[in-house]
């Protein structure tokens, strides 16, 4: 008699038997979208090196993915990933981390690597809060929200991470929410094949920390909100900035060709070898 197993189970590290995610967390939806994209491209996890930083979403590849995984210090995964790409240019390098990791402490590495345009996929799970440490304000937390470190409400303007990365010059930028797993999967597939720095922001629910702070406590409610607020890039183009204030613009925001750094380095090596002593 054959056992019924999840079709993506073969991608999970055999030694892992449980999850540290809270009930209702969006991590599972994003993890499945990533693995489904790899599966649909008929690729193997050995074609990848996964890199993550610190925070709940950084625990998606570490330890779940049965692949080469580097779980790094807080904010630095993209910098580690760049070194990995230099050493293994033929492999796909994917960074999976959160908004606090990539846009707060690691913001400098995010913009500089968007500028460099070395081929890699960066998936940023944006839950607008610090989940692992217990609900502190992030650079993505909506203004006015009371959090553990802003008991009177945040008084700072938040980041639009995708726009930040676009401004820094990334060749591929997309945004989806956890309400859009199919679209997210299709975009991840595209990002994996993109010759350049690809950034995907996934708006994801943290019912335990963010949900409690906003009073929207259940993940189902949060997903419903994503559904209602989501607006495609094409539709959004017809609206004013004010009309878009409460909306989440989803879809592929940028997809352009730019010189890719690994290829540029190969050209430099050839030139330098000609000028050798």
């Amino acid at each position: 008699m054959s056992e019924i197993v999840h079709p993506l189970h073969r991608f999970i590290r055999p030694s892992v038997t449980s999850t540290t995610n809270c009930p209702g967390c969006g991590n599972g939806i994003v993890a499945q979208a990533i693995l489904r994209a790899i599966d649909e491209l008929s690729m193997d996890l050995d074609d990848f090196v996964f890199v993550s930083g610190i925070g709940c979403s950084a625990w998606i590849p570490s330890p779940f993915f049965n692949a080469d995984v580097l779980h790094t210090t807080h904010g630095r995964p993209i910098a580690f990933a760049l070194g990995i790409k230099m050493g293994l240019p033929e492999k796909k390098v994917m960074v999976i981390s959160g908004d606090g990791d990539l846009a707060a402490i690691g913001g400098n590495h995010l913009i500089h690597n968007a500028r460099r345009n070395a081929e890699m996929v960066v998936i940023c799970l944006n839950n607008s809060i610090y989940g692992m440490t217990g609900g502190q304000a992030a650079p993505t937390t909506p203004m006015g929200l009371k959090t553990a470190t802003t008991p009177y409400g945040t008084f700072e303007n938040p980041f639009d991470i995708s726009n930040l990365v676009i401004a820094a010059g990334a060749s591929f930028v997309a945004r989806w929410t956890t309400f859009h797993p199919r679209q997210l999967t299709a975009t991840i597939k595209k990002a994996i094949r993109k010759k350049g720095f690809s950034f995907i922001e996934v708006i994801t629910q943290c019912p335990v920390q963010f949900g409690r702070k906003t009073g929207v406590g259940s993940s189902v409610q949060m997903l419903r909100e994503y559904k209602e607020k989501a607006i495609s890039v094409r539709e959004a183009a017809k609206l004013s900035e004010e009309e878009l204030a409460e909306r989440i613009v989803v879809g592929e925001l940028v997809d352009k060709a730019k010189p890719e750094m690994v290829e540029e380095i190969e050209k430099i090596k050839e030139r330098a070898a000609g000028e050798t002593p």
Partner: protein
Amino acid sequence: MSGQRVLTGKYFMMGNVACAEGAIAAGCEFAAGYPITPATEIANCLAERLPQVGGVFLQMEDEISSIAAIIGASWTGRKVMTATSGPGISLMLENIGFAVGVETPCVIVNVQRGAPTTGMPTAGVPGDMVQAKRGSHGDYEIIALCPSSPQEMFDYTVLAFNYAEKYRTPVFILSDAFVGHMREEVIIPEPEKVETVHRKLPEPGADPQKIKGFLDEDVAPMPIFGRGFKAHVTSSCHNEYGQRNLSDLAALDNFIRKLSNKILKHKDEIVLVERDYEGAEIVLVSYGAVSRAAAMAAALARREGIPVGTLRLITVWPFPGEEIEKMARKATRVIVLENNLGQLYPYIKAEAAHYAEVSFLPPSIIGQIHDPEEILKKIREVAK
């Protein structure tokens, strides 16, 4: 066609350039850094030379990403390095701890300068001697080598790569602006005379579930990326298989001890000193550029009939305490010479004071190398 790695020949060469050539001779394939005085020439030289031999140099956005990038590249099986000065090391410290924690071979060159804080960039002051050992948080061991000439910048950089590979650990070159900017004769040997070491790897095709890639006091094989080892590499507390454990204190104890013991167990192979104290009653202990003045002062004192010897620390971490004790048992007085306010002095005193009278002599102005005459005056004083 790829360029020559080892530029065999006799040169009049700057210490920092000799360091970069040593790295390339040792097989360095990737380096990343950020411009900083007085270490910049190393980056400049690597940026020119690495692409000629098929390698890559990246100028990063800061020192944090520089060390991160070289650790990432080391995990792909490449030999890697970065070079900076004090402020850069201060920024790198968290990731240096990371490199220790996941046992990553890498070479970190610190061309020390006038400090604290932004200090005086062009002054040669070895003021980061203890930072190299204790700068990152937690208990750990590190390897650090102290060159005193451009030739040694070449030789010890090669050695640093070999130690890094052999013990899977970050290795410091603790130079300073004096040695880094000094120009002297440097002899680069024939390629076959440059000894190079490569890290141990798991057997090809090894079952990923069975690879013990961490926490072996005799150095575990490194399950580098891209070979199907499916390595789980986390600097969080982990076991021999790399599995994270954040609740069991026994696992933490094992994590701390195994990492440290890996270096301490091999201390005898790692520690290098230069002894010249046969029959001496007074011994001058020093390292780096100061040891040049110490040798001169000892020669002058001997000419006066005072039996003075020298002990030069080449390896400063792991601390060569046994060598200090061995010396102190034979001497009656020990003078510690450092071009700072006494960074290694407490460590040296702790080992030597049981057997000999130990005193400390900084230069009259910090940042100036000791005048041998000044040292001689101190020798005459303690000889009374």
